[in-house]
């Protein structure tokens, strides 16, 4: 009888403990922590298929484990608009196939997005890059489009070969 009581008590305890478990401690991260961007002036980085050089702004994203950004939802705007940028150079990302929205690409872990200068020598000054991004925490929730802002300084006398070459890999496929 003692054994039966013990078994039942253990079972009840397991049940009660599991049912009364508190919400998970892993609260969703603030967007800026889940998707952390940094801006970097870049020049002198040879383009793989030619002799010309890249010059512009690199946006380095560190993406928290378990989170991902939608590639096609990223938007960039530089202010003041005296600094002209061309179409963002987005790595292909990781292709995912959603049963409802079809194929799309996402970024995980780290990714660098290049915003090319339209003119070869940019005017010195402090520039803000406003980003609109959208992403999700895997299987848990998604972030509606959220604004972010990073700053890049172009020093006086800046020439396209002054900035260091980028050191961050461009997208890590998984």
């Amino acid at each position, binding site marked *: 009888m003692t*054994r*039966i009581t013990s*078994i*039942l008590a*253990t*079972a*009840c305890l*397991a*049940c*009660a*403990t*599991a*049912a009364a*478990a508190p*919400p*998970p401690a892993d*609260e*969703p991260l*603030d*967007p800026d922590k889940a998707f952390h961007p940094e801006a970097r002036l870049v020049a002198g980085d040879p383009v793989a298929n030619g002799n010309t050089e890249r010059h512009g702004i690199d946006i380095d994203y560190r993406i928290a484990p378990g989170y991902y950004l*939608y590639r096609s939802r990223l938007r960039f705007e530089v202010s003041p608009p005296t600094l002209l940028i061309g179409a963002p150079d987005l790595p292909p990302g990781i292709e995912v196939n*959603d049963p*409802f*929205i079809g194929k799309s690409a996402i970024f995980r872990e780290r990714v660098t997005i290049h915003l090319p200068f339209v003119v070869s020598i940019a005017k010195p000054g402090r520039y803000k890059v406003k980003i609109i991004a*959208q992403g*999700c*925490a895997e*299987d*848990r*929730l*998604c*972030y*509606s489009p*959220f604004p972010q802002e990073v700053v890049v300084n172009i020093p006086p006398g800046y020439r396209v070969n002054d900035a260091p070459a980028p050191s961050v890999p461009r997208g890590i496929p998984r």
Partner: protein
Amino acid sequence: MKRWLPFVGIGMLAALAGISLWLAGRHATPIAPQPGPVDATPAAIQSAQFVDGDGKPRTLAMFSGKVLVVNFWATWCTPCREEMPGFVKLQSRWQDRGVQFVGLAQDDPAKVAAFSRELGINYPLWLGEAEVMALSRRLGNRLGVLPHTVLLDGQGRVIESRIGVYSESVLDSRLAAITGK
């Protein structure tokens, strides 16, 4: 004959039931509604304007007197879509017991209509512009994430505000506790 064997089985089943309950609720994160803002008063919640699939203006006031399950969602949000079949079942189960589900999205009307048809959504899916997420934030969704589900009483007062996937079984129990039915 090992007479204790059935008891071990019962014990394991009970433990499994408990673990299942925990797993069912593990994705949802209850959050406290932000206190104070005038726009989140019951009157403001009930009078907020949206449009239905035909473009007709709608407000939550039309369901006054019912317990409302207001679900902020989007077609591009995979976790949102995963929880909605459960809401369809719950709407059927609770519709005669004073509970009404409403989906609110800032989204492409054509995509919402296609999704509604595909899943056989049996509750209103209304649309709006930026005011949808603004309302969601005023109801406690500080991070602006989806899905976000808010339970309102018959007078439009917030009973609960929760981000993340709300499992069918957990919400079913919650509705039973709220309505006493």
